[in-house]
């Protein structure tokens, strides 16, 4: 019996790599862990998961699970937990896990801790550290009961190596006809980009309100990101102004990133935004306001006009 069960996320083609980071926490907690995959047509994705040291890859594959609808997914997750007997259910903090896992927690009558960044062990009992108040503080939380659901911040845990002896893939049988039918999938905005995924990129270039419009944003933020082979991010203000799509938003309510290099263009540094970037290794801030709060946490600060500096920067990088 696996002690932990990890809900793995995918985009129908492949595993979303940040969802593998929860494996690191399962290893720290000790005991066997199994990986749980829900969807339809999962053979290839399941096969890509066998070498992460799990006791099994448990696969719930059915046309009824083709779209990640929370009512169905939560029910299948809860059934898999009951059947497998896992005490800890893990996922990576993402809109997918945040949609499905709290609902599964309610079905399992179990408490949940969101955004775990570390565990602490004291007198044989484990507590969990998590950011609160937009990351301005950390709370250490104790959980009672025999079962718990955790989501982890991908940026706080290393990705696992895929070098273990292949584990079995086990089909999880459930009664698809008994699944709820209250949520219907209608459509998804399909936007393909050649740029790397924001949460996995080594370099992230982000823009704020001073970028003015969509075209300028793309030219300066996009241009610099492409010169560096990086991903694009944005502040809430830039998204609200229609310069960038919602899934580019970084911060308390958007994505959390921790790249090697984060470049902030025209971002003053609201705490909600800083919450999403502060684990980046190197932060470069370019802003014309010398008192912008972001300069207090930037590794390198350059005061000046974006419209002059960014084209020069793109040019210098391209030449190098």
């Amino acid at each position, binding site marked *: 019996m696996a002690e932990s069960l990890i809900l793995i996320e995918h*985009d129908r083609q492949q595993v979303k790599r940040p969802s593998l980071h929860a494996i690191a926490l399962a290893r720290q907690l000790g005991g066997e862990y199994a990986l749980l995959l829900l969807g339809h047509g999962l053979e290839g994705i399941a096969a890509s998961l066998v070498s992460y040291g799990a006791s099994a890859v448990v696969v719930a594959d059915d046309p009824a699970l083709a779209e990640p609808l*929370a*009512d169905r997914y939560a029910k299948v997750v809860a059934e898999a937990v009951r059947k497998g007997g896992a005490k800890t259910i893990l996922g990576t903090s*993402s*809109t*997918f896990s*945040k949609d499905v*896992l*709290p*609902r*599964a*927690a*309610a*079905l399992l009558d*179990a408490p*949940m801790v*969101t*955004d775990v960044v570390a565990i602490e062990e004291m007198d044989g009992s484990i507590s969990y550290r998590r*950011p609160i*108040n*937009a990351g*301005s*503080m*950390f*709370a*250490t939380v*104790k*959980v*009672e009961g025999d079962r718990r659901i955790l989501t982890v911040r991908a940026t706080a845990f290393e990705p696992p190596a895929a070098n273990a002896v292949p584990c079995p893939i086990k089909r999880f049988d459930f009664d698809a006809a008994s699944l709820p039918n*209250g*949520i219907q999938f*209608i459509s*998804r*905005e*399909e*936007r393909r980009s050649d740029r790397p995924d924001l949460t996995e990129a080594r370099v992230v270039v982000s823009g704020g309100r001073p970028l003015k419009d969509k075209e300028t944003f793309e030219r300066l933020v996009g241009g610099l990101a492409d010169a560096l082979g990086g991903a694009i991010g944005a502040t*809430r203000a830039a998204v*609200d102004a229609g310069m960038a*799509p*919602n*899934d580019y938003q970084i911060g*308390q*309510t958007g994505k959390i990133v921790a790249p*090697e290099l984060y470049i902030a263009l025209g971002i003053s540094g609201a*705490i909600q935004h800083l919450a999403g970037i*502060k684990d980046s*290794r*190197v932060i*470069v801030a370019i802003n014309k306001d010398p008192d912008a709060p972001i*300069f207090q*946490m*930037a590794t*390198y*600060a*350059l*005061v000046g006009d974006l419209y002059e*500096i960014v084209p*020069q*920067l793109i040019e210098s*990088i391209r030449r190098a």
Partner: protein
Amino acid sequence: MKILVSFKSVPDPNDVTIAGAAVSTPKSVINPFDEIAIEEALRIRERGEATEIVGVTIGAPAVDEQIRAALAMGVDCAIRIDDSRALDPYAVARILSAVVQKEAPHVVIMGKQAVDDDSNQVGQMLAGLLGWPQATFVSKIEFLDNKTRARCTRETDAGLEVVEVNLPAIITTDLRLNEPRYVSLPGLIKARRKPIEALTCDQLGVTVRPLTTVLSIARPPKRAAGTRVESVEELITKLKQEAKVL
């Protein structure tokens, strides 16, 4: 159609200090995401699709100040569950499920998360407890088919997604759903006459005990401010030679 909006009184996010295993603030406010939920309920009523908006919150009598603010925005009446313990999201969801059973709304709208705790759990847990459909992180709501269904646009990590939920359902709000109105003076005056019903968990017939406890709260180490550079050349040199990221 009857709408239940649940909201949480939170420390003013701009003015929070640590006091033991809790935070302290000179001023509490309605959780900004819940304010968006209240605003949406008001707009649904203004376009003639709802007849009644009931607010609910949990806390000591001090939260009546945030309840008055919700009533002043336009909520019709409110229920305060009188419980001043440090509840966890699951306990809150269980209390709210008892309130939903008592009030029988067609839809429950609430913020996707509270800005103090950032857990993002209550709406989904409530939907699970009730066996109702859910639409989370919603930035657009339309009612369809004689208000038997709602079409919701959700903000997900991969972009926008549209789902339809059968009513009754739970909807949790994201930032871009709307911009909440300011409270008006006539609104404030009206709010004084609107009823607030205080109920205990006993009266609701629900017993909850939080299963998660905050042991301590601390500030993370501050990231030190770095170096000012004067030119693009200097920046590139530093990134190459000092930080070694280029």
